[in-house]
């Protein structure tokens, strides 16, 4: 993975910095916001010290962890999907497939349609899906070779194809069905937030292509990022919260209809996954 990126860097491909910049990461930024951000960092450091003091009073481990994350703010890339803006056009699916050269029949990102109700009370909503880049990834816990791991530097969960043996344990462990076996290499593949783009200061391909601006990308730990601001003012949800995986893909206005629920025993509901796995996990 790392090697790929180095190759990519040395390939002479120049990035147009005016396009698709991630607002959250200031890579080689030459504008004056850098002093602002360092000032902010100082402030946060102080805040962290205060919070650490408070933590000893509260005695809670969470408070201490919170203080630590405030002190040396770690980057955790996240995506907010505003389903109110999604038109179900599959642009993200196609962009992802071409960007990542995904074999026929597989997808790292897809859009589910949820159709329900009976005329005239009917509804249709869209649920774009991808790897949730969980903070507590159950796929990482079960990997026997350490091939899949969560990157310290940006919180993206990746697969090292050199180490992966294709045992499919992580596919079993992922409640979101976000992983598949690449038929060419036999190793497991998944969405990595377009690491090759993100490391160049670009947003992931699906975010770049989304016509309705339904997909928003950034560092969730940065209070100035768009994702942070969106979650600060909107009600949001994550998928399968009960799994305890702490996803980093957040949804605004998502239809979390469960077609297998007793509620829909006698009424119409249909989920179209638009992928090889025609049913959800």
């Amino acid at each position, binding site marked *: 993975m790392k090697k790929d990126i180095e190759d990519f860097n040395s390939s002479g491909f120049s990035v147009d910095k005016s396009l698709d910049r991630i607002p959250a990461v200031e890579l080689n930024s030459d504008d004056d916001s850098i002093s602002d951000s360092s000032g902010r960092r100082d402030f946060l450091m102080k805040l962290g010290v205060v919070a650490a003091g408070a933590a000893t009073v509260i005695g809670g481990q969470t408070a201490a962890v919170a203080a630590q994350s405030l002190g040396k703010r770690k980057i955790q890339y996240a995506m907010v999907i505003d389903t109110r803006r999604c038109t179900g056009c599959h642009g993200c699916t196609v962009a992802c497939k071409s960007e990542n050269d995904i074999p026929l029949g597989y997808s790292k990102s897809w859009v589910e349609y949820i159709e329900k109700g009976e005329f005239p009370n009917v509804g249709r909503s869209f649920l774009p899906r991808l790897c949730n880049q969980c903070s507590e990834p159950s796929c990482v816990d079960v990997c026997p070779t350490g091939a899949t791991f969560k990157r310290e530097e940006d919180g993206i969960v990746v697969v090292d194809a050199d180490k992966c043996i294709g045992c499919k344990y992580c596919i079993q462990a992922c409640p979101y069905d976000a992983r598949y076996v690449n038929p060419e290499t*036999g190793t497991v593949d998944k969405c990595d937030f377009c690491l090759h783009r993100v490391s160049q200061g670009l947003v992931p391909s699906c975010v770049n292509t989304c016509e309705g601006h339904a997909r928003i990308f950034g560092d969730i730990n940065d209070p100035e990022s768009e994702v942070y601001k969106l979650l600060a003012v909107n009600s949001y949800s994550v998928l399968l919260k009960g799994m305890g995986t702490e996803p980093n893909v957040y949804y605004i206005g998502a239809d979390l209809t469960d077609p297998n629920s007793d509620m829909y025993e006698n009424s119409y509901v249909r989920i179209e996954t638009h992928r090889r796995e025609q049913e959800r996990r």
Partner: protein
Amino acid sequence: MENELVWGLPVIGYLFLAGLGAGAMVTSATLLLIGEHKPAYFRFARYGAIFSIPAVAIGTLFLIFELGTFQAGYWFKWLNLFTTITMSPMSIGTWMLVIFFIFAVPYAYTFMVSESHNKDNLAAMRKRLALPNIILGVAVAVYTGVLLGAMPARPLWNSPLLALLFLVSALSTGVASVLLFEWLSVKTGLSDWFAEKRGWDKNQMDDEHNDAAYKMATSGAVLIALEMLVLSLFFLYAHLAVGNAVRAIDVLEFGGAMSTLFWVGVVLLGLAIPIVLEAQQVMPRFTGNGTYTHSGMMIVLVPVLVVVGGFILRYVIVVGGQIAKLAGI
């Protein structure tokens, strides 16, 4: 069942064969330890030891066949498993299998030398290897359940009782497979052939043999009873839960996708019928009101039912766990 199964027959075969082989090893080592000076116990121990190694080895090969990299033509990429130790049950299990083979292969070898008998010059070494092999056999059998149990995303598997269920099933199929392997060896003349070629003592249907078989049949019955208990608890706790676990156990219940196979294959054929037959046979001697004769259906029918039931159990659990739907999204 529109989604493809991620783990199919090779994994089911592995879980079954590794459990069975580990169970046969535990049976073998136990018989050796309890029947130190008795040739009949020694012979049974030999059948168990010889059978155990290929069973676990073939199971492990199945596991390699299932690997995506192996199927894509990268035949040796699984060796990556040996470059690291992680907290993944699969990594721990891999190393456990290595340690199992390190102890089990020399143990089986001590039985294989020509003219091996219970008082030969390898007897001390054989005895010393027996206890570690019991422990490692149990560990390998338990691990097959832990492997599946590690994931909240597969609620049918994610029960602490699954490891226990697989352990008890592994031990009972292990005992049954040793009885079956003995019968097959005698029937096919393999036993006589070895007796002639390697100077091993001939299989005799004497009192001692009957005694060893009685002990195996009794422990077989106890193990089936335990398995029924664990299975009941497995069901009970799934029922007392909410959400995912309840939905998962529905797959095995009446009307569920795996229900016929489970109730007929596992409960009726694999547990209920064998325990009734076995109890009928061992009860007279167990209660002191009669004798036990290792004959008739005890030799073939019961072991076959137990082994087949053990396979169907793995099948139902592995497939059922993958088709059970999660609650919500």
